[in-house]
């Protein structure tokens, strides 16, 4: 026996995908809103946390979310050049790209962190991104339980 018995959620076939979306309230949150108003089909895998700006999402928060056992995290902000807060999303992007690099370095898939800059502004765009993201996460194994904080 190599691994301890896992509960049903951690086996791939029946696993419930859990993700969190940090959505900038000037862009991606509007997209999410519209997706709801237009009654577009959305996967039930995610919860949205509205933020004033994507730059407020520290890499530490993303790591905290992954350490709590979530399958993935999405950070969605305005298009580059369209930030309401003094171009704050440019350094935020660099920072989160480096976090993707770090996940890759220790062997987690970089696609667990989805970045979107101005590509989720319309309802159908947001829904498309979330469907794609959920499909990617479903194809990845659950985050190793020994890497996750026991809840």
């Amino acid at each position, binding site marked *: 026996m190599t691994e301890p018995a896992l509960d049903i959620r951690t086996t791939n076939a029946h696993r419930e995908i859990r993700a969190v979306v940090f959505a900038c309230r000037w862009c991606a949150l509007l997209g999410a809103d519209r997706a709801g108003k237009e009654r577009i089909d959305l996967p039930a895998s995610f919860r949205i946390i509205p933020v004033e700006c994507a730059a407020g999402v*520290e*890499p*530490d928060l993303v*790591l*905290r979310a*992954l*350490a709590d056992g979530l399958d993935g995290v999405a950070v969605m902000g305005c298009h580059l050049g369209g930030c309401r807060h003094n171009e704050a999303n440019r*350094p935020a992007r*660099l*920072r989160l*790209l*480096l*976090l993707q*690099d*770090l996940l890759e*370095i*220790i*062997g*987690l898939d970089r696609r667990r962190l989805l970045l979107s800059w101005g590509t989720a502004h319309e309802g159908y765009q947001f829904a498309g991104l979330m469907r794609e993201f959920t499909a990617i996460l479903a194809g990845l194994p659950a985050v*190793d339980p*020994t*890497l*996750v*904080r026991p809840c």
Partner: protein
Amino acid sequence: MHSTLQDRIRQMLAGHEVVGVLGLREHEGAVGPHVFTAEEDTARLVVEPKWPLAKTGWMIVRSLPAGKALGLVCRGCDIRAIEELVRAEQIRPGALRTIGISCSAGQAEVCLCETPFVPGEEPSVGVDPMSMPAVRRLCRDPDRLNTWREHFRRCIKCYGCRNSCPICVCPACKLEDDGYVTTGMVPPDPLAFHLIRTMHLADRCVGCGACQDSCPSGLPLLSLHLAMRRALRERTGNLNATGALSLMLTASHEDGTLWEDTLGSGKPGGGEYER
């Protein structure tokens, strides 16, 4: 070479340029940091083994009154660390007078150091960390997640990596904050504890290896930081993001200063995560 080093220290002490010179001293068969204040003491100065002294120097210098300086016998990595601390307004420019020694090629290989020399001196040979098999096994191998898991499991959360790091000088630390890293849990959350530390150092790490040297469990932390440095350089073209922008939100304050104001310029400082 050793005697010219001693001559320079004697010169500094004789000229009252500095209150003392921090270096390594051999004492009763052991080597440790020591502040040389008398010229005749310097006979017991040694330069081996490698022992990054920037953090020790910072601790001494921050309690010195304005206008006083401390000498420091150090290596290339220490000089880079001091540059970073000056930039972050943790040390007054000129408060640490460095006497640099370049490292040997053998030492550079142990430290996986690309730049084992002191600015202004003859550049000695460094190594490319990403070409070393040990680093490649940790950062490129397909099975690296398991390797890292086994390493992280041995962590005893002694905070030695943070405490020895010349760059980790925030008064408040997220690694002690229950919101980010669960307190009272050993080993710590591997994803949170080690990766938050790596992210905070991503644009500031000087590659001195003090974290790895001080780790009682022998975690290969330096490989993690060096791989991040490489990723940063590939993304920005710089080894450090120095000057351009401060990437990482550590314990930042309302007025934009990153750390507690220790230089007494009248700006507010200290406290928890103020926003």
